[in-house]
């Protein structure tokens, strides 16, 4: 299994009585052959390669290990964040276990270990295999810096989604079928929910490569989604919730689904404070 530039992640040949039965490797175009219909998620996060192997043990369900090299820790975290429902750390830098399946990320790797059915033995093996693979990845990778701009407060940490493709914005909060916020591989976007209950407040931050892009995105957003915002800081939309937006430097900020105008603006202002705090912590450049 690939790691570093040429080295291999050492997946064990045997774990708790399950024996590996060979390894398959996939590059971009081949990924469709392996996960038909699922490849686009990984491709949209800069997929590099996949190494996959099956483990078998008589009388027990097969276990499949998929180790994705996503090229960077940002991408690995991003793809992991797409489906996270709870905060766990049983392997790597973040993990999640459900019904026989463990997924985790570490450094630039996104790893899935799935038992075809869950038995007590297969669950133990899945956890043991996850820890073994995580230990074979020597370094942890940095998280995207834009996450540092998320105010803590009522943040639901499991709701944080990081992405660089506009499809993933609509996956979690539908705004428009067109990419009106100009999200692409050169932007860093994070979406997070605040509070609890049926209707949570949604915070969206997008960092653009330059001032022109953030200006154009804000203009498009204003013109095509929120024209009433001109001269105001927040707008009450058709469902009775409040939407607000702001931009600061290269970062665009939007709050959706807020129950009151004050709640929307509190979050906008909290992001501003996080930005100031973040700028103070950055080293100065000549």
């Amino acid at each position, binding site marked *: 299994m690939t790691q570093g530039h040429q080295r291999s992640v050492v997946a064990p040949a045997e774990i708790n009585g399950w024996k590996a039965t060979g390894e398959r490797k996939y590059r971009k175009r081949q990924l*469709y052959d392996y996960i038909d219909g*699922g490849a686009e*998620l990984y491709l949209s996060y800069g997929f590099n390669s996949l190494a996959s192997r099956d483990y078998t043990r008589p009388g027990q369900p097969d276990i499949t290990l*998929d180790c994705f090299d996503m090229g960077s820790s940002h991408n690995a975290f991003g793809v992991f964040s797409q489906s996270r429902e709870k905060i766990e750390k049983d392997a790597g830098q973040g993990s999640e276990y459900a019904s026989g399946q463990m997924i985790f990320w570490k450094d630039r790797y996104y790893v*899935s270990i*799935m038992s075809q059915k869950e038995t007590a033995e297969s669950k133990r093996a899945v956890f043991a295999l996850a820890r073994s693979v995580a230990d074979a990845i020597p370094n942890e990778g940095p998280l995207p810096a834009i996450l540092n701009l998320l105010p803590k407060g009522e943040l639901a940490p499991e709701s944080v989604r990081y992405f660089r493709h506009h499809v993933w914005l609509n996956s979690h909060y539908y705004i*428009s*079928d067109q990419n009106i916020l100009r999200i692409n591989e050169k932007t860093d976007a994070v979406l997070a929910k605040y509070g609890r209950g049926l209707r949570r407040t949604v915070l969206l931050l997008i960092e653009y490569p330059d001032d022109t892009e953030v200006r154009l995105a804000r203009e498009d957003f204003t013109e095509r989604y929120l024209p009433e915002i001109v001269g105001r800081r927040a707008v009450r939309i058709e469902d009775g919730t409040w939407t607000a937006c702001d931009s600061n430097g290269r970062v665009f900020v939007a709050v959706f689904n807020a129950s009151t105008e004050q709640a929307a603006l509190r979050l906008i202002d909290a992001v501003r404070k996080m930005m100031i705090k973040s700028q103070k912590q950055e080293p100065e450049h000549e």
Partner: protein
Amino acid sequence: MSNRTHTRRDFLKNAAASAAAGALFLNAPEELAPQAGAKSRVILIRNRNLLDAGGAPRKEVVRQMLDDAVASLLGEKEPLTAWRRLVKPSDVVGVKTNEWSYLRTPVEVEDAIKRRIMDAGVPAGNISISDRGVRGDDIFEKATALVNVRPMRTHHWAGVGSLIKNYIVFSRLPFTHHGDSCADLAEIWSFPEIRGKTRLNILVMFTPLFHGIGPHHFNRTYVWPYQGLLVGTDPVAVDSTGVRILLAKRRRYFREDRPLSPPPKHVFLADTRHHLGTADPNRIELVKLGWKDDVLI
């Protein structure tokens, strides 16, 4: 083809209007297509005894559900009379199934369909059931009629694995239809080997997948025994109804409005852009038969 922007606010202002724009029907035989102003009929049938203790479908219950659904769809008392309106003895019939390993079209459903097509007079040699092998399959290449059947599930990139999407393997280059989260999948339905041939669409809702995680997008946590079938001649109307059930299940499970990831825009664009059918609930006549508990719609 319109490239008008559809925003959340548009939907909030009038959820039905945009979906109702172009409910024309290109893919059903003329006698089965709704007339101007008529609604697309969709049958939802459920049976609480469909699945046995091991989760396998009982074949006799499957057959009965399919019979009842098809008869109700065409307003016939006898299922065979209804099937004879769908296929003629001279037809060559391709049954487009789905063999995704984690949640395939149950063999019991395929068998029930084939049995009824044969009962309607089509020789077994003129029927083929296939998924990825449709290209190059003799029967599919000369098919005069198609039956489209697959389970409903969420999908990594298209939002849902739908009846509309089930025909993607008719394309020489399926990945060329992946752009913009598979937005224009319905264009496949205008291929000569498909256009106008689909007599029946069956969305299997025995154990739908309402959320997916990991590279294989499957986890048993996120299936539930809904024990239903959705049946219709309008694939968009059937898919749209299936989507609404998945959304209701997600809302109940996650305890918040949780859109499908990504949104299944191909279902709605199949209506508004490609005019394949209607996705608008106001233009769908939903007939509910059988078990009503937790019907979600």
